[in-house]
């Protein structure tokens, strides 16, 4: 029966090509717009490090003075050098890393390559194992290198291709800002999205190309990038004395194995704040936060509001397209009242008629879904041409591919329900009489 109904459906759809085309186009446009924006939203609100995001935490303290204090405010989004170092040395977590962003001039050995700037991350050794950074060659540096302010560097695959032609460059020298660094490791492709460990660099920016020990970067006073917030008398734009300034400018991450550990760490942070207050360094009441990766991204509202707005709009758009399709399908089905009346009179049950019409609606939906998918590919391609830092991420994955089809067929069958039901209500006698 199914194949017969399918044939009937195709025949009926062929009979009125303009109307059929209109329905398919409407569904395709709605699905295309919806899937484009939802895919972007899906990609942007993804988990940058799914295996560990629940175990990585971002501690926040409030080291500011009482100027401008308001109760219940969030503590600063970064930590000071002193607090960072204290927490780092306390070693209360399984792993911990203190870091900040920067940019260094790279001076290639080849005479024909002009010097260029690379984004850099100055961090402590735990960064690599903690964030499970994949290595192509070698590995990160050790805690000993941190203490020794060693001139060592980890570079990305891209930079390795550029400087060393993609060869295993362990032990090679790379000159950064007139200083020789020994390459100890080359990263494999790695781009966590969002750039969760430092959102000051752009929420979806690419990862840095050069990784250097934090202590080394301070020793050489390498240029920093990112946000610095200062207060009180220690503020200003002190490049060299930023270690002592009352400024927050560093990110500190910890890895905690279990919720119990997290609770214990939070207590530790509170005690630390109390102690600092007793010492007179902190003035405000104890105000600490300990969020894991997803909570932190949520708090920082990393998904651009324009993207969310576009998603809502596209959903509205799809609804209009569906209402349009319902109207057209209703017209189409009711026009065939005579034919349906004959079928009813010949013994077809309401149920059978209903089935037949729903199959017809499903065919329209499937066609619309396929065209919509094509439109979504075009839409995502257009998004990728945009200059936004997340643009290159806009690709359809398997989940969204499945969702597209489910949405297309589901919504067009939903759109077929009302017209099919209305058409079933046709009284056969009335139709036959008017023939």
């Amino acid at each position, binding site marked *: 029966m199914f194949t017969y109904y399918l044939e009937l459906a195709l025949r009926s759809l062929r009979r009125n090509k303009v109307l059929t085309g209109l329905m398919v*186009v409407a569904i395709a446009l709605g699905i295309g717009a919806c899937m484009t924006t939802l895919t972007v939203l899906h990609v942007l609100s993804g988990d940058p490090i799914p295996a560990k995001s629940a175990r990585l935490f971002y501690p926040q303290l409030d080291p500011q003075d009482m100027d401008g204090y308001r109760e219940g405010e969030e503590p600063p989004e970064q930590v000071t050098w002193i607090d960072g170092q204290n927490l780092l040395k306390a070693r209360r977590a399984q792993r911990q890393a203190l870091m900040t962003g920067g940019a260094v001039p790279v001076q290639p050995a080849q005479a024909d390559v002009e010097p260029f*700037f690379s984004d850099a991350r100055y961090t402590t050794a735990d960064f690599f194992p903690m964030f499970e950074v994949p290595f192509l060659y070698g590995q990160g540096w050790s805690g000993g290198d941190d203490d020794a302010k060693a001139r060592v560097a980890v570079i990305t695959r891209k930079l390795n291709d550029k400087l060393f032609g993609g060869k295993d460059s362990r032990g090679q020298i790379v000159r950064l800002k007139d200083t020789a660094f020994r390459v100890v490791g080359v990263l494999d492709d790695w781009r966590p999205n969002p750039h969760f460990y430092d959102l000051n660099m752009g929420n979806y920016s690419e990862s840095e190309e050069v990784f250097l020990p934090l202590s080394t970067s301070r020793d050489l006073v390498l240029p920093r990038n990112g946000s610095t917030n200062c207060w009180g008398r220690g503020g200003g*734009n002190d490049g060299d*004395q930023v270690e002592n300034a009352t400024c927050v400018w560093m990110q500190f991450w910890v890895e905690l194995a279990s919720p119990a550990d997290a609770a214990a760490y939070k207590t530790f942070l509170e005690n630390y704040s109390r102690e600092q207050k007793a010492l007179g360094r902190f003035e405000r009441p104890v105000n600490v936060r300990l969020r894991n990766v997803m909570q932190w991204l949520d708090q920082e509202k990393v998904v651009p509001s324009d993207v969310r*707005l576009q998603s809502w709009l596209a959903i509205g758009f799809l609804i209009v397209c569906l209402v349009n399709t319902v*109207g*057209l399908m209703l017209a189409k089905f009711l*026009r065939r009242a005579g034919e349906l009346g004959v079928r009813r009179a010949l013994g077809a049950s309401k149920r059978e008629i209903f089935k037949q019409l729903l199959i017809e609606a499903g065919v329209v939906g499937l066609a619309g879904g396929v065209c919509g998918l094509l439109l979504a590919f075009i839409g995502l391609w257009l998004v990728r041409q945009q200059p936004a830092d997340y643009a290159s991420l806009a690709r359809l994955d398997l989940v969204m591919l499945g969702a597209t089809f489910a949405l297309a067929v589901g919504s067009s069958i939903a759109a077929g329900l009302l017209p099919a039901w209305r058409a079933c209500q046709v009284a056969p006698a009335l139709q036959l009489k008017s023939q």
Partner: protein
Amino acid sequence: MEIKPILAALRQHKAGTILIAMQIALTLAIVCNALFIIQQRVAHLSEPTGIDEPNIFVIQNEWIGQTSSAQADAKLRSDLDVLRRVPGVKDVTTSNSYPLRGGGWDDGVRLSAEQIEDSSDATIYFADEHFLDTLDLKLVGGRNFRADEIQPMSMRDRLAPPVIMVTRALAEKLFPGGSALGKTVYLVGGPATIVGVVDLLQAQSVARWASNFAYRSVIVPRRMAIAEGAFYIVRTQPGQLEPAMIAARKALFADNPRRVWDDKEGILSFAEVRSMAYESDRGMAVLMGVISLVLLAITAAGIVGLTSFWVGQRRRQIGVRRALGATRGDILSYFMTENLLISVGGAVAGAVLAIAMNLWLVTRFEMHRLSLFYVLAGVLMLLLLGQGAVLAPAIRASKVSPVEATRSV
């Protein structure tokens, strides 16, 4: 035109009528809000910077190698001299930033040393005595900086200039109703006397977080004497921008090759600066425009489709009416009026929906309240769209011959 029989007929097509009205209502709600978003974005990206945009380009220069503050300052001044000699260049200045750059140093301004909360936020622009001339800023009171007031500033120094200039917007915020000239304000490093007020100068960021101090700037007599980056702002003679940009790059690298310019952002004409600053706003406006157009097209197509079906269904009735003396005009106006009734119903519901949708958007996104003008414009647009869409099927209906009345099907 009698409305009663039309209403009676519509009651026979409840589902279709409601669907068209619903579609019109939803389209109206979305299009109104989309148009409003477009207007907001376009208004935002048309805000003036206050500078001579067509003739300005910007260079971001960074030195290679360890450079002391004094060396950096000497090199910077030599660069400015080199730039001044480039053919087609009218004037050159150096700063820590420029309007629409996207971010930089913003700081609080206070009226007294004891004050805890800042009186206003402001963009901090470094400037030398050529700043006003290069950017083509108008001084509305006081004087420009003198050459001897311009001091180099390194990372270590505090921002404590004895004299500053402010924009008019900041002056009015700090001293409403009075003159700001000669008054003392407190920057992060200490007190400073206002010696000049410039007319209009936009902030370096046009993002929403910076919108409350969009035109409030403090201009300080300082030069960036640091190795990692100062901006050179160059104003050219009209029409000389492109050759001057090429010549400037050549001249600077010939003078001293030990420098780095970013591939993409090392040297930018101000037109490029502007297009980068407003990329997302422009993209959003275009997207909203496309969505609105497609929605209107789909709605029009839906009306044509459904009305054509109704016309087909009623050929016999139309024939009977024509046989009983109704003119073609009567038939035409019957369908036009029918559509108008449905459209008005849909438009009323749509207007309410548009306002509700806007209120919801205001709570979720940083949007303003929808002005009623947009709702009215949207209603009018959809009524016209409906009438336009129904015209073709209605004309076809009016051509139904009275003979149809006698045919059985």
